[in-house]
């Protein structure tokens, strides 16, 4: 079972409306491949709602010829050998075995579905491993850079929290790695990471921790690294701030020297 986050529900909504992007779709499918009853239920609900939107279109009828055109086109592209084209004796044999054949077909269908799902899940895992390996190499290069500074994000004292955070930032390339411990927000909340350019905050996303509360955020290139003045973490409602900046208390911060 994959851990559920509110963010996945946004992806479910985008999926049902057909506006999900490639990255989002891959993330959602990976999440669903591990099983998530909350998202499966949400997808069913959202898909039904999308059907409702479709049914608000004004009634329209196609010409009666369309049905025949569709069936004729299908006939010209047979998906499987047609029983009608087989010799009569074969039809007799197949008819006698029809119940077994039907059962086999259903079983095969389910098996193919299962194998396809397993193959897709394996492919996703391999891609994930490759991505993680590549990511590790990039982090290694970043940490080895002479321009990289490492520092802790200090507690502001606004909220009593177990969260600790340390950042390594290369101002020349904009690369950054942040490591979090104790990143277990109160129920219904998320920790959100921010970078400040002067006084202007830009969200770097929700801090996604594992079950032990550890998280690692790697950013290849923060835009305009020379104007970065601080990193900060705020406590936000689940899903993150809907405002342009933090909407909840800032609980960790590190100001950088200019």
């Amino acid at each position, binding site marked *: 079972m994959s851990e559920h986050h509110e963010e996945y*529900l*946004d992806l*479910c*909504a*985008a*999926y*049902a*409306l*057909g*506006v999900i*992007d490639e990255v989002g779709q891959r993330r959602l499918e990976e999440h*669903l491949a591990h099983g998530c009853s909350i998202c*499966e239920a949400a*997808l*069913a*609900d*959202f*898909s*039904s*709602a*999308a*059907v*409702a*939107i*479709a*049914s*608000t*279109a*004004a*009634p*329209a*009828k*196609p*010409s009666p010829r*369309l*049905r025949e*055109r*569709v*069936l004729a*086109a*299908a*006939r010209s*592209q*047979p*998906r*499987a*050998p*047609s029983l009608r084209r087989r010799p009569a004796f074969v039809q007799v044999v197949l008819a006698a075995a029809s119940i077994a054949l039907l059962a086999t*077909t*259903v079983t095969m*269908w389910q098996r*193919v*579905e299962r194998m*396809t799902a397993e193959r897709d899940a394996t492919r996703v895992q391999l891609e994930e491993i490759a991505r993680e390996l590549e990511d590790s190499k990039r982090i290694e290069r970043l940490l080895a850079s002479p321009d990289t500074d490492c520092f802790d994000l200090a507690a502001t004292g606004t909220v009593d929290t177990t969260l600790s955070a340390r950042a390594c930032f290369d101002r020349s390339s904009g690369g950054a790695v942040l490591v979090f411990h104790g990143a277990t927000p109160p129920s219904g909340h998320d920790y959100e990471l921010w970078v400040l350019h002067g006084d202007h905050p830009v969200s770097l996303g929700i801090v996604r921790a594992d079950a032990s509360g550890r998280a690692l955020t790697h950013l290849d290139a923060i835009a305009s690294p020379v104007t970065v003045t601080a990193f900060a973490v705020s406590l936000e409602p689940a*899903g*993150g*701030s*809907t*405002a*342009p900046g933090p909407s909840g208390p800032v609980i960790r911060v590190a100001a950088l020297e200019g």
Partner: protein
Amino acid sequence: MTDVTRDLDCLRRIAAGDEAGLSELYDRYIGLIFPMAVKIVGDNAHAEDVVQEVWMQVWRSAPSYDPKRGPVAAWLLTITRSRALDVYRSRSARAKREDVVAKESVESGHDPGAAINGARKRDLVRRAFAALEPKKREVLELAYWHGLSQSEIAVRVGAPLGTVKSWMRQGLRDLRASLPEGEWW
């Protein structure tokens, strides 16, 4: 046999090359997908081309349907919407489409008898959709009928991306909550 099991049975038969399965599914859903195609591409002739492509895709890719991703109706509509938006974008039919949308908005009380499951359900859905908060309704319309991404919608309505995502999710949830449980279509 419920509608859901009947749909799945049709798809299994289609996957096995059974034309009758395709015929049955066509009859069940043409009343839902054709109006959608017309609304997006703007006229019946192009909508018929779209619908023919949709059924050919169903014929070829029935084995790839995954019930966990939503009901068969939603799958058919996703294919239809995608094909129709492709045609719409490629043939600059915006003016025609706007005409259709505008015409619909002033004819909202006309006879919906051609809808797949009758006038009552259609009116129910229309009322539920109209009752949504305006911002939620707007983002759903921009996404579904105009094919705009969440980022494009955020720019169009002048709201933060996170807010647009939230409206979209809540709009779908509110709409679903206002419809009967189970297989309402």
